[in-house]
């Protein structure tokens, strides 16, 4: 019996976080609950590929976690008692998983721990899968999780949805973690090994469940739209041999136009709430690209205006660089190069700056300087697909 990896990931994701939330609520002990679920997930990943996914995977995970708890929590009589009384199906509190997410992404935890805890607790990834996704040793991930869990207990990090006054800031913390996960999944091409998970799909799933729970938070809708717009075009980003296809050359018929339209509706819903934010603006920019029938039809004027708004809300040199790239199509390569050069000091170690400079210099006929900039970009790039693109450019000129 074989179970496809994606199917396995989907089933675990749908149930592990929910079970962790229920057990945390019941035991009042995040750390113990999280350990039990992790054991159950590991058992599932060992047995389901052989035995097949059970009819009720949630009941299966529950039973394994419960029995394991009765076994290992011997010394904690109160926990054992509560577990012993527990019968399937368990009643679920509607906010349980959201509460858990806010605990995992608490600002008192370091960012890498927020990411690891969210993946393990909410999405049901194993420590080994997280380590593989981020290319760090498994022991490092395990240690980060142990430390974070100790801090949650010892520092009294609560298990609840923040009050209205705290919500915007705390939600922003959660969105940052989801966005980071998405970027990691989007950029990495290490999704080949047997136990690997597609982080991009985990991020989309997280954003989707957040949008279900908090439908009136425009930045949640904005982030979901942004992720869906990237996902809708992901298939056309690489050619058959794994090389990056630049945007102007992408086959737009391979984009998922229904998903793009859906993301457009999400952006409109967010805008109607009247609280613009960085994720909504980024989604609107990507939508301008996604909705253009061809590269030449792109509404560059609109994109530059949106970048200006984004820079007002969230100034960043990387955003300025992206604005300069768009400006090229509106005001020409010389104007764009001037903007890019102004950022050279701040972004000296950022490969996209040099790759962009190279393109602009080439457009302006400065071939030698362009090659030099491409070489500098190559020196700074680790991603194999991006390296291949730069090497091709250097070889071809």
């Amino acid at each position, binding site marked *: 019996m074989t179970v496809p990896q994606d199917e396995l990931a989907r089933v675990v994701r749908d149930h592990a976080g929910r079970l962790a939330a229920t057990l945390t609520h019941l035991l009042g002990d995040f750390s113990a609950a999280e350990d039990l679920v992790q054991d159950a997930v590991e058992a599932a990943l060992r047995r389901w590929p052989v035995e097949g996914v059970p009819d009720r995977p949630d009941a299966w995970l529950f039973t394994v976690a419960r029995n394991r708890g009765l076994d290992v929590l011997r010394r904690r009589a109160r926990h054992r008692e509560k577990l012993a009384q527990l019968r399937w199906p368990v009643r679920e509190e509607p906010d349980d998983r959201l509460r858990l997410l806010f605990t995992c992404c608490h600002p*008192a935890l370091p960012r890498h721990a927020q990411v690891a805890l969210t993946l393990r607790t909410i999405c049901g990834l194993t420590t080994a899968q997280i380590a593989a996704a981020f290319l760090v040793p498994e022991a490092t991930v395990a240690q980060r999780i142990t430390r974070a869990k100790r801090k949650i207990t010892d*520092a*009294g990090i609560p298990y609840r949805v923040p009050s209205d006054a705290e919500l915007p800031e705390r939600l922003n913390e959660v969105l940052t973690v989801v966005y980071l996960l998405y970027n990691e999944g989007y950029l990495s091409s290490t999704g080949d090994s047997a136990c690997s998970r597609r982080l991009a799909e985990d991020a989309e799933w997280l954003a989707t469940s957040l949008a279900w729970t908090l439908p009136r938070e425009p930045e949640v809708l904005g982030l979901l739209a942004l992720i869906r717009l990237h996902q809708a075009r992901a298939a056309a980003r690489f050619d058959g041999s794994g090389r990056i296809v630049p945007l102007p050359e992408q086959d737009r018929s391979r984009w998922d136009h229904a998903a793009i339209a859906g993301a457009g509706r999400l952006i409109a819903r967010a805008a109607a709430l009247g609280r613009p934010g960085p994720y909504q603006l980024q989604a609107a920019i990507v939508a301008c690209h996604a909705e253009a029938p061809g590269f030449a039809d792109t509404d560059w004027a609109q994109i530059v205006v949106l970048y200006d708004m984004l820079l007002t809300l969230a100034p960043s040199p990387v955003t300025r660089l992206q604005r300069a790239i768009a400006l090229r199509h509106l005001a020409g390569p010389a104007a764009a190069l001037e903007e890019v050069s102004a950022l050279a000091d701040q972004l000296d170690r950022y490969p996209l700056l040099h790759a962009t400079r190279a393109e602009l210099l080439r457009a302006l006929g400065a071939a030698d300087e362009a090659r030099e900039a491409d070489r500098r970009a190559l020196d700074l790039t680790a991603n194999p697909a991006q390296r291949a693109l730069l090497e091709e450019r250097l070889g071809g000129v």
Partner: protein
Amino acid sequence: MKYVLMFAETAQYAEELAAASDAERQAAYEEVGRWFAEHAARITHHVHLQPPHTATTLRRDHGRVEVTDGPFVEGKEIVSGFVEVEVADLDEALAMARSWPACPVVEIRPVDP
């Protein structure tokens, strides 16, 4: 849970306070007074320290004892006081620290039960 909020001053904050007029300084003290009144039910103990020039530090190193002038960390942030609070969880302690009207750095640490 019991926590200690450790308040720390920065050089910039000290300069601003020194440059303030008497009336401004008075207003700042009153704000601190209001903060204490507002959170009186949660505050179990508080201490305000004299400025860092009054500090003396004793350091033990392999049996040798050295006494030096000044606070133990020659840093940009200098502890100026402590408040011990009894609250439900870290978020409640954070909310208190957030509304603290004076010096700009607050470290929050749970107290050993």
